[in-house]
């Protein structure tokens, strides 16, 4: 019987040890400290170099560490002064002269001045710049129209454009236009992305791989020191774990709440935020070949898909049905008169029958996730079911986001008939200009992967881009939207309302239509 007693004794000891360690450890899970905001992010940032990143997830951190020359006015997508206090635009719209804010220093102590601005844009745009190799700079084309940047004096900078380019100011407010410290770039070189230094409300403190990016309050912030002592951005890739952490009290705020989890946050302990933004979720249709070469079949797809059900059920109301290519968040450019295609499977069947495309076999590219893709697999599956119901035999192929882009961006020809896609932009010009023009076909370096081509649309977009008057631009865009809706190069599905949840200790938080996360006015007890 020795064996048994031994075992029993051993178990007892092990149990006691475990119990002890639990007992000691338990308080650690209780609460997050006051004054420190812990944000559950959807992913680890790629880098904290604004010129080098493209993901909204990264922007959420960057906007708090850096400032641009201009920024979006809170609650809108309109531009207001930031590091530049004022600017002048030349008559022909090709010269922008900025007056810079005085007395601003970067977190590393180096001064912010005209030279710093020049350094930033030269680094991104000039291949011969000695720090161009700290790139690559994937969004440099936002400023591709800039032909030169000069420091007129210490606090004046002049940009010269090769041609008028209406979205220029808006692009400057975008994270790609955020100003980094030249001294820090010089010091860290390629590792600058891990050792960021800007002028923003928070200074970078620490980046623990896959655990957290910590930023601390900048007491000398030109726009007033933030309320919080620090913000911790935790990457929690898994939406479910993110929700669990939020519920368990491990984080104070989470963004991109999975629609299915929203119901968990309905009680008083949490606040749910929602904000529509410049986002459109659509299906690219291959207009070059196959059934979707016929406009009627494209329209039929728009009729066949029950978008109301998608946004209300699958996305639990976190989005609205899209009517056309331009999201309503660009209020001045949005054509209010457009009505979304209604859900009308009968009409869809008719159109399909007219086009003789009954029983057509379609290949549908679906991604597993990606920036702004809103539960793409569930959406794709539901869409596939709707298409099957009207007699379009649809087969899904799923791809991881980067592979997906590698498949879709070079064009769908020969591979697929349709593909999911979502864009978030800062200007009504960007998406149609890059993805609907004839000159934006993949072989010409654009993102028109469905090969839509309508000379009228091309012309409208070219005009709008160089027009300096906003009303004139608005009229052009509204006209464009009408034509595009009729041509149905895409299935217009949804405009996302971004959401976030905070616990009841967080105050002063607001979501922005830009989808950025601005935390300088937030407090937490």
């Amino acid at each position, binding site marked *: 019987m020795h064996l048994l007693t031994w075992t029993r004794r051993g178990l007892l000891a092990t149990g006691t040890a475990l119990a002890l360690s639990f007992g000691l450890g338990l308080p650690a899970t209780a609460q997050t400290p006051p004054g420190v905001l812990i944000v559950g992010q959807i992913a680890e940032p790629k880098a904290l170099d604004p010129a080098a990143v493209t993901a909204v997830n990264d922007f959420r951190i960057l906007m708090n560490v850096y400032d641009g020359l201009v920024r979006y006015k809170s609650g809108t997508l309109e531009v207001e002064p930031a590091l530049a206090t004022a600017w002048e635009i030349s008559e022909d719209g090709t010269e922008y002269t900025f007056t810079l804010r005085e007395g601003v220093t970067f977190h590393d102590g180096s001064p912010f001045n005209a030279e710093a601005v020049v350094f930033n844009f030269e680094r991104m745009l000039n291949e011969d710049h000695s720090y161009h190799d700290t790139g690559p700079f994937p969004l440099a084309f936002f400023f591709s129209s800039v032909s030169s940047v000069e420091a007129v004096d210490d606090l004046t900078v002049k940009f010269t454009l090769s041609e008028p380019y209406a979205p220029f100011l808006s692009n400057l407010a975008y994270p790609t236009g955020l100003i980094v410290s030249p001294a820090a770039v010089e010091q860290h070189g390629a590792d600058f992305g891990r050792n960021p230094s800007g002028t923003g409300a928070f200074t970078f403190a620490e980046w623990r791989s896959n655990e957290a990016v910590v930023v601390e309050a900048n007491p000398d912030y030109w726009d007033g020191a933030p309320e919080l002592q620090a913000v911790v951005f935790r990457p929690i890739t898994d939406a479910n774990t993110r929700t669990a952490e939020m519920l368990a009290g491990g984080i104070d705020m989470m963004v991109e709440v999975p629609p*299915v989890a929203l119901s968990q946050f309905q009680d008083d302990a949490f606040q749910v935020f929602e904000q529509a933004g410049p986002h459109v979720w659509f299906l690219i249709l291959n207009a070059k070949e196959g059934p979707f070469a016929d406009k009627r079949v494209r329209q039929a797809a728009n009729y066949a898909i029950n978008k109301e059900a998608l946004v209300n059920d699958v996305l639990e109301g976190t989005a609205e049905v899209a009517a056309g290519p331009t999201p309503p968040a660009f209020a001045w450019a949005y054509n209010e008169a457009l009505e979304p295609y209604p859900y009308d499977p009968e009409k869809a069947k008719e159109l399909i029958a007219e086009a003789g495309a009954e029983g057509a076999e379609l290949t549908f590219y679906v991604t597993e996730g990606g920036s702004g893709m809103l539960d793409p697999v569930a959406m794709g599956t539901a869409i596939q*079911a709707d298409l099957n119901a009207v007699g379009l035999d649809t087969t899904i*192929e799923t791809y991881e986001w980067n592979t997906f882009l590698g498949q879709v961006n070079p064009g769908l020809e020969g591979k697929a008939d349709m593909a999911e896609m979502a864009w978030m932009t800062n200007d009504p010009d960007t998406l149609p200009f890059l993805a609907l023009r004839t000159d934006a076909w993949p072989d010409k370096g654009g993102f028109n992967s469905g090969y839509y081509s309508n000379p009228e649309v091309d012309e409208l977009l070219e005009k709008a881009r160089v027009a300096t008057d906003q009303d004139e631009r608005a009229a052009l865009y509204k006209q464009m939207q009408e034509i595009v809706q009729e041509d149905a190069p895409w299935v217009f599905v949804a405009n996302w309302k971004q959401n976030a949840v905070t616990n009841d200790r967080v105050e002063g938080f607001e979501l922005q239509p830009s989808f950025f996360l601005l935390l300088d006015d937030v407090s937490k007890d």
Partner: protein
Amino acid sequence: MSTLALLARNRLALAGLIVMGLVVLLALVTPLLPLPDPDVTDTGNRFLPPFSEGALLGTDHLGRDQLSRLLWGTRLSLAVGFAAATIAAVLGAAVGIIAGYYGGRVDNLIMRGVDMLMAFPYILLALAIVAALGPGLLNALIAVAAVNIPFFARNIRGITVGIANREFIDAARLAGMNDARIILSEVLPNVIPVIVIAMSTTVGWMILETAGLSFLGLGSQPPQADLGSMLGEARAALITSPHTSVVPGAMILIIVMAINLLGDGVRDALDPRLRSGALTRPMAATLVRREDPAPEPQGDDVLSLCDLQTQFHVKHRVYRAVGGVSLGVKPGECLGIIGESGSGKSVTALSVMGLVASPPGVITGGAVHYKGEDLVGAPYGRLRDLRGREVAYIFQDPLATLHPLYKVGDQLVEAIRVHHALSDSEARARALGLLRDVRIPNAESRLDSFPHELSGGMRQRVGIAMALANDPEVIIADEPTTALDVTVQAQILSLLDTLRREKGLAIVFITHDFGVVAQLCDRVAVMYAGRIVEEGPTRALLEAPAHPYTRRLIACVPELGEGKRRLHAIPGLPPAVNDLPSGCAFAPRCDKAQPACRQGEIALDAYGPRRLRCLYPETELEGTA
């Protein structure tokens, strides 16, 4: 017993079989069941709880019927699991057989490759394969199969190496077969059970792995359901609607568990060792199930066996290995027990100290008296105390009977310290003395040798030293020289003879060799089919054997010095001890047998110093019957 019957006997395996049968049946009839289409979405009715109207298990995040998806998903997951296991098994076995059969450089190169693949974290390998091939259940299947090939290859190679060295492979080559034919017709049939076992125990694992890939979104493509992708899709709603996760999760658990139960059953049924009950753990002492009261001790023997009966209970068969043996040995006496294999001589010896492996061994009757104390009924503690201290054993194969991982000295020290509270150095000094007693050259350095570093003769000397460690009264030597060469055997026998005279030991010496008995033993008992047929002083018995079996056994052993000649064989075979004839067990082979020999119990009668169990002896013995 047939494999199926064996499988059915294992209750857990049966449960697994039934559950698996149900699952497979459900999967097979799924297309016939009145289920909603698993792919039709109804987003308005998403996340319905189980037992809702029209949705027994509720609906998922797109309002699809969970039950329908579960059954279709099970169908797919099962198919994939089996397919992956089959592919991995076939390819892995092919690689393993080739490596194991050809050996040498081929083996070396293949196994190095296998090592490399095994060093690669397998999930990452699978992931990379899927990434290369693109997502899809078929590709996930290929990946899962591919990463498991090395495990099969390694396993099968080991088995094949064992088979390739067996003599029947050589025999096949001499029968004119070439390598390919030998692999196919000789090696493969012997490897297949192992492959089946490996497969049955890994199907569950494969289902888990495929589910894992599907869970990561690399398996089946929507809207197709398999259990892993159901779980993966449901994960987002784990907190709000746990049922969507629990349903596929529980199904995976049930299936894999059923498969594992079944796999264990298949393994047990196909494994010949388990079949014969060999993988049961022998208990610390032989089971005793004595129905009749223990006989009283008689005489002045230091060790006496009285009507000892030991049986082996294997399944429903009863092997009467020892069928009522009475023997005694006096201090300083050497008693030989002689018999052919299966005659029960070793079991008799092991029964003395309760060392017969049990299960399946059971002592069912009689008594073993050591100095008047009945050992058969003694509690384990008492038996343990006497073992090695009063009654010690020397076994046959010294390589197998010494612990391979302990130094010879340590094993001796242990034998001493089990019974005597000596310090380590005292015990070591004593161990050294023992090694010198058994005439081991360089005893000092041998203390630190491992058994495999010694020759057979030296090992057996260690075995003898260990038996002598506590100055026992009785030594039971079970064929101690059978595994040794003649020259070494002569040395060991002479050593034993010297020791017993020096120390006044009582020895029970078990052997099958008359020459050995003649040289060493004072008295000898001849066993046949579990019983003593004749006993007496060695010289008298060998010179004038009375039992026909004894006489004929002596006659059929060739003796040195007579040149080439014909031998006197005994026709037939000894009887199986689970099916003994009534009357004299030797009667069917005996040329003197009469009808009376085949009826009733024939007693072992005493004739002076001799005892005999025969109605028609070869020579008339004097003395009363």
